[in-house]
């Protein structure tokens, strides 16, 4: 390692290495020594010692009740957040649930968020070209019939007429050469979805109920409107935005979607799966695993806090919450249906919510409460095994115990 540094000798290295410091700090020490053109061994030792002591100071102390501190650090700013659910986050065009409701949603680990949304980054060749980016958009956005052409209902002949717009077809199916093929495809989709037979001449598609029925006709029109001809049903809208690319320092097109279908989107050609994300933590979990879900929980909570101007909350608190939510390898909510409800201790569960049921079940199953946790010990009136309660303090002088004082480490 010292090869990189001219003035950092093996002796200095040996001295500095003696202090168990993290890699990054070691490097910074070597760089500093290098910048000063070398130091003598005493100085190296002193520097390392001073830095080591400061490093030790900055670490969490053993028995620090980090859980409670983190919970308070997230809960306390909750009182300062807005209840206003809708407000545009980042993208002006897409409404996203924000503030306290969003925070609650995340902590609850809801199966679907109130406003599902994805941020889709594109691979290089697609990201820098608006046309190519649009190709991806057309594959994602749910295309309904109204976007493709006009519908007219002919009551006299009991016929629904769809007049497709050629330009739109050409735009949305850029890879298909002939408009005719596309129109045929659309006609077939209608046939499959509605169970009717269609007649097609150029871009005009006609169909009607088998037997003349006014009700059936209107019903067909209603059903026609819901058919998804292209794209993913869950994604109702896609917005393209030009943003700075952090990696290449250039600009790129980023897609924001209303609605989320993460798994399907990841497999679309042109989507950069490594940077795309969804605000639905369960979708991320299903497609990318717990580690990714954990990361998403951290990012989403941080984003929610940031939006409220509370970005000074230390990210380590959010990490702890995300870690406990994903500790068992799947996403667990915080609360009665998740972590609090699956605690080992009967008393802890009873003290949280649905008191009576927990006690009755415990009786039937013959459970035993070992009184390990915090709440149980508060209940029975014993010191809790956290913080200063976790240390067994022994009073009395060393002489009285018949021992000799231990030599200090340094």
């Amino acid at each position, binding site marked *: 390692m010292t090869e990189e540094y001219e003035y950092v000798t093996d002796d200095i290295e040996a001295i500095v290495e003696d202090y168990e410091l993290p890699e990054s700090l070691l490097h*910074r020490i070597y760089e500093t020594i290098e910048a*000063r053109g070398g130091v003598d061994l005493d100085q190296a030792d002193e*520097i390392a*010692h*001073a830095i080591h002591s*400061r490093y*030790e100071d*900055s*670490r*969490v102390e*053993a*028995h620090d*009740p980090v*859980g*409670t501190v983190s919970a*308070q*650090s997230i*809960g306390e700013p*909750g009182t300062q957040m*807005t209840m206003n659910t809708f407000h545009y986050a980042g993208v002006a*065009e*897409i409404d996203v649930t924000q503030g*306290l409701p969003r*925070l609650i949603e995340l*902590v609850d680990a809801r199966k679907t968020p109130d406003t599902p949304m994805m941020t889709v980054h594109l691979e290089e060749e697609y990201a820098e070209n608006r046309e190519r980016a649009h190709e991806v958009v057309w594959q994602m956005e749910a295309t309904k019939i109204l976007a493709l052409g006009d519908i007219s209902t002919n009551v006299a002949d009991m016929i629904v007429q769809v007049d497709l717009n050629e330009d739109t077809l050409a735009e949305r199916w850029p890879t298909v050469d002939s408009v005719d093929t596309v129109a045929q495809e659309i006609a077939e989709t209608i046939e499959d979805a509605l169970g009717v037979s269609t007649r097609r001449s150029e871009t005009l598609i006609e169909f009607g109920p088998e037997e003349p029925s006014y009700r059936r006709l209107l019903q067909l029109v209603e059903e026609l409107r819901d058919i998804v001809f292209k794209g993913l049903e869950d994604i109702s809208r896609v*917005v393209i935005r030009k943003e700075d690319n952090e990696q290449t320092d250039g600009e790129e097109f980023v897609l924001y979607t209303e609605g989320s279908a993460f798994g399907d989107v990841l497999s679309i050609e042109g989507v950069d799966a490594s940077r795309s994300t969804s605000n639905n933590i369960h979708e991320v979990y299903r497609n990318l695993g717990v580690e990714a879900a954990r990361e998403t929980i951290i990012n989403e909570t941080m984003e929610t806090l940031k939006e409220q101007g509370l970005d*000074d909350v230390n990210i*380590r608190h959010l*990490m*702890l*919450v995300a*870690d*406990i939510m994903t*500790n068992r390898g799947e996403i667990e909510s*915080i*609360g009665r249906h998740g972590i*609090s409800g*699956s605690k*080992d201790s009967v*008393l802890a569960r*009873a*003290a*949280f919510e649905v008191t*009576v049921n927990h006690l009755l079940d*415990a*009786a*039937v*199953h*013959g459970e*035993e409460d070992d*009184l*390990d946790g*915090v709440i149980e010990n*508060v*209940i*029975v009136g014993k010191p809790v095994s*956290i913080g200063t309660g*976790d240390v067994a*303090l022994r009073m009395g002088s060393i002489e009285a115990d018949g021992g000799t004082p231990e030599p200090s480490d*340094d």
Partner: protein
Amino acid sequence: MQTPKEIGAIQFGLMDPETYRDMSATKIITADTYDDDGYPIDMGLMDPRLGVIDPGLECRTCGSHSGSCNGHFGHIELAAPVIHVGFTKLIRRLLRSTCRECGRLSLTAEEQDEFRDGLQRNEELGEDWTDVLKSAVRQARKASRCPHCSAPQHDIKHEKPTTYYEVQDVLAGDYSERIASAMQPDPDDEDDSGMSPSELAEESGLDLSRVNEILSGEFRPVGEDRKKLEKALDADLTEEDMNKLMPSDIRDWFEDIPDEDIETLGIDPSRSRPEWMILTVLPVPPVTARPSITLDNGQRSEDDLTHKLVDIIRINQRFMENREAGAPQLIIEDLWELLQYHVTTFVDNEISGTPPARHRSGRPLKTLSQRLKGKEGRFRGSLSGKRVNFSARTVISPDPTLSLNEVGVPERVAREMTQTMNVSERNLDRAQQYVRNGPEGHPGANYVKRPDGRRLKVTEKNCEELAEKIGVGWEVNRHLIDGDIVIFNRQPSLHRMSIMAHEVVVMPYKTFRLNTVVCPPYNADFDGDEMNMHALQTEESRAEARVLMRVQEQLLSPRFGENIIGAIQDHISGTYLLTNGNPEFTETQALDLLRATSIDTLPEPAGESDDGEPYWTGQQLFSELLPDDLNLEFTSSAGDEVVIENGQLISGTIDEDAVGAFGGEVVDTLAKVHSKTRARVFVNEVASLAMRAIMHFGFSIGIDDESIPQAANEQVDEAIASAYDRVQELIEIYEAGELESLPGRTVDETLEMKIMQQLGKARDSAGEIAEDHFADDNPAVVMARSGARGSMLNLTQMAGCVGQQAVRGERINRGYEGRTLSHYQPNDLSAEAHGFVENSYRGGLTPREFFFHAMGGREGLVDTAVRTSKSGYLQRRLINALSELEAQYDGTVRDTSGTVVQFEFGEDGTSPVKVSSSEDNPIDVENIADRIIDAEFDSEAEKEEFLGRKKLPTNISEYAGPGLDKAQNLGVESDD
């Protein structure tokens, strides 16, 4: 039974009726409580063997008096078994999954093994096993015949809450009519000619004669015959027969279930037998759990549980009498149901579908479940949250002369809260003096304890006498005195800084006094807030409080890793005035500014004025408070560069960013790099200096401070008028149908957004115009710029224009149909019709504007109310989920059962208290190296300290200990 000293574990299980009888002090047979003389009736509900509540009486079971006797259970022998409501679901599950004949679980041996393994596996993994349980029951229920004794099984119907039926399909009474009608030709189908009896016989494979017998109703086709007929006719010939299962039947059934089988269902047979879920004996809680209250008029008022027990005993007796008298089955069943109802409501009075048992007054009774449940219930109200002694609560008020570590305690409180003194030769004199002062005099004593353990109350009469007796080995409960440590708290306790330890300063009057700089962590103000104080009772807790909980130890917030305590409000205005523009002071003025601080000598004057008088600058005076080795550079909120070199403020204005709470740079650096004690001294002195400074300059705000010249007012009007024009333009474009909608928005939404935008701009420009006309020394401007209080927006609204009022983030749109108020035309889209307030607060609002403003204001109030409850619950859940997590010696984060949650806290083991979330490299390697290489140390000790070889001794008191203390090392020593 001996009471254990410490509880090691708690086992849960069901109780055997025999155990109920064994532990019972007496059988209860009469529903009466007290006789005419007011004595409890023997074998009644208030039997003296169940414990005592009246003082002076003796418990007939254990012989101790009320207070030391916890009470003893009694029991009622129920005339017939009844179901325990809490287990109705489990009873149903058991009935469905076990055989009605042999009681075995209706699963084959393989299936049983499989489920048992599944259960065990889930238990080992600490996962929920209810799923396995449910599927086991589902599987067992499928069996139509018992796999063990092949007895046919029937479906069980459960009628909530406590009735069970066995459902059997039997041949319907009108079977012949049903067959006949099924044989008739279908009137809709012309091809169907019906079925003749001979055809039926052929189809079903029965004899024709038998078919005819059946058709005439002479023969009942049961079993196979019925099925054949049903198949041939495609008709249903059965009806359901409901056979009610009495609790005694169920009990008999459950007794047959073998232990191995219930294990598969997740029941622990060693602790709980299923038949125990059906009560034959009812335990009667001791009287101490249901004390009766004597009202003022001498009448006794019984507890709800007692009322319920009275009901149970009465019905129980009637049941027995009727049964002995041989009453008809119908009456017995009615009484049985009634008994079931009373026992049910005794356990839980909030069962859906059952009318709750009510008190005479109509109030529903609070029975066993209700006592445990909910926020005020036993678990959350009494066990997790306990009431304590040695606590006090009163209104708080500010006192800038106190240190932030101190709290002013009213003498009355100090006389009530005591600390235990162990008398030794060293404190004997003091102890005697305390006792001599008695309970009324201030540093007095309330109780003494002799070495033999006897406690004596100190009274005005005996205090002199007692004082003489005090000797080594006694304990004296003395009053709180200056320097004692107490815990201070303000609710809601949202973070750990809501509970901090303070040192006592006993004061006159009746409020707690605190330094204003501790308001931010407590989120306190003085508009009537009350706070709680707790006097600590053990040496261990006092030591912990001093070292860990004292205010100065809590200067840094773990939420964002910066100081949460610092200068606020007037302090900031004060330092701003003192340092902005660097004013000059004469010697008298300078000394006056510093007089409340510990600085007692002035530095070299900065210069001389024209008439030869020396002068000192504001920056210079502020620098006196800084330690000499402080070097800092940062940009203040006012925007100028603040430079501090070697403890001297070279340039820049000291404002919120420098000394404020919530991350003031100077305070933050002192707390992190120097010491908490140094930071405490600094904050105290900055507050004192700032108060002196603001008094020197004078600082007030009145209505004239928000007025702007007429010309400016006209400009504002103009700006607003032009905004109105632009809004009108937008409306015209919209009405012409030419407005282009923004992507993803409707045209209506687009219009709203654009109008909002225009009006927002109008307010901003009004604000800018107003701002231009305010002098820099305008107090409102000073406060806004320095960050002391308020913002430029507040000022804009006072002087320029209040702006658009919003409800749900939109312009005000509600009210009448198509309009907000009847003052406007329907569908008027203009600014003023939708809540734009063009006037300023100073100018005054028109009635309509006022109304809109009130609408916006109301939304804010509702929002706050909803938010507090929601976020309170969120915090409760978070704390409950995370409370067990603790950092370990090896740096991992584990819960109390040892499960690792993080291998390194926050991925790098860095404490959020010591490192701000915005910092990347908390350790300044360069600076450290420079100092070591340049060897800039005044002494070897300083160097040792810098290197971290020698730690600063812990400061434990405002008055004593190392470092900077109030007594300035005058040799005053702490006494405890």
